[in-house]
């Protein structure tokens, strides 16, 4: 009889699994919620290092002084993006407060996340709202933000005789040429690891023309790889640098972790990265016994009539699971993290709170009069258009595949030249634009 029970049980499990898999993500929210700032909440984060060194525990202790009835459990996940993407299919499987995975499209936010308020109301207090606004409703607030540009080794550039920070592409290439003469790798692409070729470059879209609507414009442009656009300036500079031999010799064997040390010791001149990387590279410099002042940050080397721009954007955004049973406590934790924890100061990031000052490591941008550009929200109904176009055209502007191909062509390992490849990109992108944006 026991075996029969077991089998009935097994069948029930099988049936339940079938049911679960067939209704994933469509499950309705609004489970019983008391509305009080009390109870247990789970917080999912990608910062395993802050879990190990006890920073989260310190924050929780501070938080509980204000809200003694709330207990926060932190779950730090190494492979955050992929793991959480999978866990989103279980209604209660993705904690109460989490960093919204980048793979969730804006149009899907209402399926997974609780509305945090009216975007217009929040706009008085917070920056970086645009990417997580859908139909005027806000689904996430940035835990911190970054400026995008180029990290360079100040000593290497000085040794190469580059006194002024280059503000045009030609000056930049000339500077790289001078760095090459000193024996360092002028511009390191991180081709093998791949991700530094994706968002780190595409995030700069908007800085070249100083246009906060540049992404939206690109989503409507059937030929964006044409001189005068942001994406053309970016990819063209990358192509020229590789073509002139100003990047690493064998891109297939680059190594991100190793590159931090090589940068510190002056074997690498520059990399295109967001300001989030500054603290990591400074730590690497200190490990190598070098002053952390070797890590310099400059905006992408372009200007509009002498005025330079740098885009700033939110890093991961905090969101609340719409199926959470303790939404009030979850919101309290988000507010506290953003406004009172001092997280952004400690990390050298730009605070989401408008009134907070810029972090120390970006001070040079202000001194040089660089204007910070925050991309404006896409028009209603077009929140996903830019990434949808990238997906459909298979030109992965947020990924590394098309830029790796660009590098292969530039170094003569794949057929084609700059014109033919940009024409191909235009054709792929254009047909997706005409299908989606009409």
């Amino acid at each position, binding site marked *: 009889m026991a075996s*029969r029970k077991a089998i009935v049980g097994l069948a029930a499990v*099988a049936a339940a699994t*079938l049911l679960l898999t067939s209704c994933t*993500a469509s499950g309705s929210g609004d489970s019983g919620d008391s509305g009080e700032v009390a109870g247990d909440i789970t917080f999912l984060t990608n910062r395993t290092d802050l879990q190990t060194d006890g920073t989260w525990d310190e924050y929780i202790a501070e938080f509980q002084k204000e809200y003694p009835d709330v207990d926060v459990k932190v779950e730090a996940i190494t492979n955050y993006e992929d793991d959480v*993407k999978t866990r989103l299919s279980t209604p209660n499987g993705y904690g109460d407060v989490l960093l919204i995975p980048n793979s969730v499209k804006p149009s*899907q936010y209402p399926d997974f996340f609780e509305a945090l308020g009216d975007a217009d109301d929040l706009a008085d207090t917070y920056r970086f709202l645009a990417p997580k606004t859908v139909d005027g409703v806000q689904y996430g607030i940035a835990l911190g933000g970054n400026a995008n540009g180029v990290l360079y080794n100040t000593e290497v550039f000085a040794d190469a005789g580059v006194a002024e920070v280059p503000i045009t592409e030609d000056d930049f290439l000339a500077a790289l040429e001078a760095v090459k003469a000193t024996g360092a790798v002028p511009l390191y692409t991180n081709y093998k690891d791949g991700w530094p070729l994706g968002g780190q470059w595409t995030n700069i879209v908007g800085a070249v023309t100083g246009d906060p609507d540049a992404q939206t414009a690109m989503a409507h442009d059937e030929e964006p790889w044409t001189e005068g656009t942001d994406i053309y300036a970016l990819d063209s500079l990358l192509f020229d640098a590789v073509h002139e031999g100003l990047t690493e010799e*064998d891109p297939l064997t680059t190594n991100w972790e190793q590159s931090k040390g090589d940068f510190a010791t002056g074997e690498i001149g520059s990399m295109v990265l967001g300001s989030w990387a500054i603290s990591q590279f400074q730590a690497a410099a200190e490990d190598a016994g070098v002053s952390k002042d070797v890590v310099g940050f400059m905006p992408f080397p372009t200007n509009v009539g002498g005025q330079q721009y740098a885009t700033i954007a939110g890093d991961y955004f905090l969101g609340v699971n719409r199926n959470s049973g303790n939404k009030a406590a979850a919101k309290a934790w988000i507010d506290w993290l953003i406004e009172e924890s001092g997280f952004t100061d400690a990390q050298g990031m730009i605070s989401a709170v408008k009134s907070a000052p810029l972090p120390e490591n970006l001070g040079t941008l202000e001194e040089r009069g660089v204007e910070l550009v925050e991309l404006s929200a896409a028009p209603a109904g077009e929140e996903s258009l830019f990434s949808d176009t990238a997906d*459909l055209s298979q030109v992965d502007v947020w990924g590394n*595949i098309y830029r790796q191909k660009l590098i292969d062509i530039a170094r003569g*390992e794949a057929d084609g030249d700059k014109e033919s490849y940009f024409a191909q990109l235009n054709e792929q992108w254009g047909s997706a634009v005409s299908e989606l944006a009409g």
Partner: protein
Amino acid sequence: MSVSTTGPDPVGLSGPLHGVAVLDERGRPRGPGGPGAPGGPGRSQRRAARRGRREGPAGRRVLSRLTPYLFVSAAVGLLLLLTYLPAANMLWYSITDWNGLGPVENVVGLDNYVEVFTNPRILSVFGVSLYYFVGAFLQMALALYFATLLSFSTRFSNFFRGVIFFPYLINGVAIGFVFLYLFQPGGTLDTVLGWFGMTDPPQWLGDADIANYSLAGTSVWRYTGLNFVLFLGAIQSIPNDLYEAAELDGASRWQQFTNIIFPGIRRIIGLSFILAVSGSLSVFEIPFIMTGGANGTATFVIQTLQTAFSYRQVGLASAMAVVLLAIVLVVTWIQRKLFPDEKVDLT
């Protein structure tokens, strides 16, 4: 293994052979006990069930009749749940434009399949499989050579068998990393070549003309051991007296190979051939770890993965997976038609 010095042993390695040659001459599954054996327990259970009907009350009779099905249901349930349900799901996704998250929105019919066959960028990656296909032949030739050599009485043959099989036991990810260091500029390979006076080696992975050879070479290194063990097992299952008779007749080693060994293991060679074809169409881990598919080394499976997770077109990627499955089935069918599995008769 006590077969090392006494020459071919008909029993020694026949175990793995049964595990591999799962089909008998008529293509039916063959269990370890031969075609007749699996029916045994079933019959005795049926007998037991009949006895139960005579003796027990009605409920027990039904239960004892159900017993065999209940035993089977656990295995079948898991198989359905973990293999056929996901496969059916994939078929379903392949006719939608699902992006991998949230509910399926649009059913697009056969559009994805049309895209797979009309987009030259998707099909052109099959060219990369040719490197691995050619590599697979090299791998079979090497494996056959060593299997034949080591099936005769050879000094240290157990040691060499271990050496040749060893790479197959290493985790594929580890192999990827080991060879990544081997192929680095100034890495192990360049250093060794430097000892022999080759001062200007190419970029083994960075040069697009060479990268695929490097990767296919890694794949050959890894899988030769598997083919080798299959061949060796088959060779050792050939009755010993055939060799003795051949030696009495004054046959040379080469004549023994062409007249006894090769026809004796034809079926295993055929099987290895199918594995080689389907393997070279679906190469994945070695290029994925070593180059991530960059520099013209993307295989069809890597491209499927990129389509699903980089371009978030799970529908299209599912269609690509279905097409790959179909291609492997067709190639296998053609191979079976061209080289039918005749009964081998060495006498």
